[in-house]
């Protein structure tokens, strides 16, 4: 092949590597901006840089190099910290983590609401904002209707989500029961290990035991006042593999 027929690479517009890859660590000149000392110390392009200009330029270069060095160090450390066989997190794993986080958030929110409603000032404020009398008729004084403090204990090796619909205010000692939590899938055995206790302070304690072999499904049941046989709300347990 004749030399004139050969393909030639285009000449690069630079002959040195870019050292400061972070624009923020580059000098103003490199960013195309006037530097802090440019006007004072460099009156003309031919003038020899002053001590100050030279020092500031050196300082910009030093900090640029440091940023690049830090980036490389971080890359090395990150690579060292991650085992080579480790797979990137799957969507399912992230979703499960997210679900767990939301569950924690829901419990924390319920605790927060409960704490707020125990505080008389906060309750007054909520009543004022909502414009409602939150004490429902037919309940004893001091019993908050529409919101019950709940303590929840779940015994399970599986990931479980629990949802309890808002119950009316409960008198201390009210006997509650759930006939069992059933799934729509006939093959899924109902969950029967449910204990509901209303404490002396009106706080509802929910204790749920999910067997290790419980199938992943959604299980629902009605919470009933044992004395009046009236349904008060519903309890849903979602068992996740």
């Amino acid at each position, binding site marked *: 092949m004749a030399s004139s027929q050969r393909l030639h690479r285009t000449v690069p517009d630079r002959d040195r590597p870019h050292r400061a890859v972070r624009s923020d660590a580059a000098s103003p000149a490199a960013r195309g901006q006037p*530097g802090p000392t440019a006007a004072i110390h460099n009156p003309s392009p031919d003038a020899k840089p002053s001590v100050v200009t030279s*020092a500031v330029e050196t300082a910009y270069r030093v900090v640029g190099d*440091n940023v690049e060095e830090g980036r490389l160090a971080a890359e090395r450390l990150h690579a060292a910290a991650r085992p080579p066989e480790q797979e990137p997190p799957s969507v399912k794993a992230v979703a499960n983590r997210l679900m767990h986080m939301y569950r924690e958030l829901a419990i924390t929110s319920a605790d927060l609401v409960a704490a707020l409603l125990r505080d008389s000032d906060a309750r007054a404020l909520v009543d004022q904002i909502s414009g409602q009398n939150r004490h429902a008729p037919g309940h004893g004084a001091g019993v908050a209707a529409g919101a019950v403090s709940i303590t929840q204990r779940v015994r399970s090796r599986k990931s479980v989500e629990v949802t309890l619909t808002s119950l009316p205010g409960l008198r201390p000692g009210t006997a509650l029961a759930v006939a069992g939590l059933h799934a729509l899938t006939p093959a899924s055995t109902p969950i029967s290990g449910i204990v509901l206790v209303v404490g002396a302070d009106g706080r509802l304690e929910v204790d749920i035991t999910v067997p290790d072999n419980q199938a992943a499904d959604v299980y629902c049941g009605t919470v009933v006042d044992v004395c009046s046989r009236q349904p008060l709300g519903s309890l849903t347990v979602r068992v996740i593999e």
Partner: protein
Amino acid sequence: MLKEYGDAARATMERYFAAAAAAPSPYLHDLVVDYPRRPGKMLRSSLCIAHARAFGADAESAMLTAAAIEMLHNALLVHDDIQDGSEERRGRPTLHAEHGIPLALNAGDMLMLHSLRPLMDNTDRIGERLALEVLLETEVMARESAEGQALELGWRDLNVVSVTEADYLKMVLKKTAWFSTIYPARVGAIIGSNGRVDTSIFMNFGFFLGAAFQIRDDILNLVGDAGYGKELAGDLYEGKRTLMLIHARQSCSKRDRAKFDKILALPRRDRTVEHASWLRAAMDRHGSIDHARRIAEGLVGAAHHEFSRVYGHLPDSRDKRFIAALIPWVIERS
């Protein structure tokens, strides 16, 4: 504001010390609280709190981090004083001069451990995500600081005399600026912005501010008054590679340079008043202190320039004005 924020950080530190004092350890607790209770500038903790506030949080959100910074700073001072063979710190004998190196070293280690507790307690104050970001920043800063300290000690212990101004600036970036200005600004802004800020924007500003601060510190070691707090001219006895020393050595004749190198090669205990006086006279002869002062002023100019880039978009606030006021302060303080 240095006093206001410094006092608040100090009070938080004291709460941790009080908890530690509940089960006092002989030969340890009193030494651990010694440096933190001596009057200091509280620059780092104040910078952290000011950044947190300027970027949108309240001071309390940054208080545990600020306290941790001060504890770590004091722990490093204990170690620095041992490594440098310093005699005075904040107007009193250094910890190792009073109690001996083994006990002082142990107290410094303990203080360093103490500094981790507020950073861990941060999870309750600012949440796990931000607390982890602060910890990661701390790890980066600690690595940079250790590298900077190693550079300076290595130059001195191996008597490296060919240190340039660029080498000096690199050492100052790592040893001083990362911990004194870049890190407090970054963690404060992380807390203030709820982790939304790009922390790389603080590199230039923090470096210029920290470098000017260090050069001023080196100058004060030569020309400071009685309130300086450390032994005057201690850097000359230590053979510390300051900008003045580098400039004077580069500016002098071949014969004087040989004498320079001979003095620098001596162990600290063998450097006499005459040696220190000769080095100081060489600096005066070549205008090295003025040279360093001009460079510090130039870096302050660069810091002003970077300030407008980093903080220009923030609304005017007391904290923004405080950060701006630190720029001239670093070279005007005495």
